[in-house]
């Protein structure tokens, strides 16, 4: 520490530049974490914030976009409801629609067809809940689109009208589109393609996209047993996220970008400390000749890297949080979450230290005899 601190102060321009690079990497990490979390929230917050423990899809439905491909029946929901470890099982319809508001402005919505007095429907924080066919409770984020209580939304092509009767307390989106919770019967009519004023086929009222499940005492029910009985393909809620539109591909892209960022960070820190060690070869040889142990020199080198990393990361994360807080609430899918940011900072610190440690290990190979004569 004695030497590390004094060298940091002495070579402050060099360390300052390196610190600035690490700071920028930390800022980028915070922004990528925020974007990643924002995409998750934007993609599946409607599911994340629901009281559902598992989702049963129709058997053989492909994982990707299964929510819109799957079709289950009331009988299958009933079979699930009869399972001992299932507290609630009810039909849930999901479909993405294009619509227009009163003022003619275009709206994209995900219709969640729910049983009005069931367990999936969220409480309206503003307005009222679902009572009659054609009611809609919208995600609070739909207000940003200019939607207000009392607005009448008309679905394209079908002409079906929905009356906005309330808003949820928080953002509820699915596939980056605001959710409109509507009575299951309304969703079934839309799903069947029934135009305004037309009477739907009675069979339309028997189907939905999936069966939403809640286990007894918050435990995930035995999905294999339920599947065998109901002829479905059930997944836990978290596994079901992958079945929402584009979710896996988006996350994979973000994770890949972050992985590259971590790798670049380790390489940059490693390269800097390699050059720093090479520059100090003469003085390190002198210290080794004076009897400095390899451990003494390595500890000093790694501590130096740790001090640089901790200070730079602290500054970088702070700056990133300030930038991030400005991005939150804009149209960009962005959410600052403590867990991913702390994990990212920990990874940058760990990988940076690993890079520095690999670089400073060359200290062990410096021959102290090079401090003598003209061998320098």
């Amino acid at each position: 520490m004695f030497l590390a601190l004094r060298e940091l102060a002495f070579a402050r321009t060099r360390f300052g530049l390196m610190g600035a690079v690490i700071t920028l990497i930390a800022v980028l990490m915070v922004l990528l974490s925020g974007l990643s979390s924002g995409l998750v929230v934007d993609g599946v917050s409607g599911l994340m914030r629901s009281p559902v423990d598992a989702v049963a899809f129709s058997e053989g439905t492909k994982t990707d976009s299964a929510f819109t491909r799957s079709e289950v029946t009331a009988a299958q929901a009933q079979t699930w409801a009869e399972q001992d470890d299932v507290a609630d099982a009810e039909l849930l319809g999901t479909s993405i629609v294009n619509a227009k508001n009163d003022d003619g402005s275009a709206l994209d919505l995900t219709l969640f067809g729910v049983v009005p007095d069931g367990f999936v429907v969220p409480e309206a924080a503003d307005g009222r809940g679902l009572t009659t066919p054609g009611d809609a409770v919208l995600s609070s984020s739909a207000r940003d689109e200019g939607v207000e209580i009392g607005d009448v939304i008309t679905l394209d092509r079908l002409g079906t009208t929905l009356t906005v009767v309330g808003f949820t307390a928080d953002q509820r989106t699915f596939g980056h589109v605001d959710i409109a919770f509507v009575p299951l019967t309304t969703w079934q009519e839309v799903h069947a393609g029934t135009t305004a004023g037309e009477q739907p086929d009675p069979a339309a009222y028997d189907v939905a996209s999936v069966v939403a499940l809640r286990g007894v005492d918050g435990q995930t029910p035995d999905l294999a047993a339920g599947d065998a009985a109901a002829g479905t393909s059930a997944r836990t809620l978290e596994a079901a996220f992958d079945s929402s539109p584009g979710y896996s591909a988006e996350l994979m892209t973000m994770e890949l970008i972050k992985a590259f960022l971590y790798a670049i960070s380790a390489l940059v820190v490693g390269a800097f400390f390699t050059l720093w060690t090479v520059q100090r070869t003469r003085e390190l040889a002198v210290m080794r000749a004076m009897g400095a142990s390899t451990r003494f020199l390595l500890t000093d080198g790694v501590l130096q890297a740790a001090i640089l990393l901790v200070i730079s990361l602290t500054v970088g994360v702070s700056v990133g949080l300030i930038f991030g807080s400005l991005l939150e609430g804009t149209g960009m899918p962005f959410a600052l979450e403590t867990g991913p940011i702390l994990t990212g900072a920990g990874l940058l610190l760990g990988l940076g230290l690993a890079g520095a440690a690999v670089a400073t290990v060359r200290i062990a190979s410096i021959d102290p005899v090079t401090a003598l004569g003209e061998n320098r």
Partner: protein
Amino acid sequence: MKREPMTTTTNPTQTRTGLNLTDVMLTYGDGDDQVSALDHVDLAVAPGELVAIVGPSGAGKSSLLAVAGGLTQPTSGAVVVDGTDLVGLSSRDLATFRREHVGFVFQSGNLVPALTALDQLRLVEKITGRRAATPPLELLRSVGMEQHAHRRPGRLSGGERQRVGIARALVASPSVLLVDEPTAALDRRRSHEIVEVLADQTHTFSVATVMVTHDHDVLEHCDRVLEMVDGQLRPL
């Protein structure tokens, strides 16, 4: 973090026996390419004695310092400092031995650029984990550098850097002081001053000092002068 208390170096001059090299050989290469850097070298330096070794470049002067200081293991022979034969010791044991018994003065001082003159000496305390028997500031005073204690090497002249280098080499109260071309980058006046300081410190601290040099002008300050030619040591 709680710092471990440093022990203070003792100055056991009564147990010092100086430096003894007996029939030391140091060869490089094989067969026809074999070169003898040190050829049957015998050298005994008593505590408090300053021995100068002169000779042309490539004669083996630096090799002698490397072997005497435990930086290089000889091909054969014995290198004994205070009764301990360095031949056969592991790298770790040699480093420990150097910390406690050997001081080096390098060409141009070879000081750490980031440290002030005083911190150069404190660094040795950190390396050895022991407080110096003579406080660092006192050592700087003894080489006439007290007023520059808080200057870094970049703000010191060549002669001043060498003085700090000498003080640094004495922090751990070594039995043996090995000095490598201390006047190589100095003018005539400063060369005399530096070797005078070396002689003074050698006698004051009862150190067995070996100085290799090209500079014949400064030999008058030395107790004994030897010449090294082709790896062989002989009186001048």
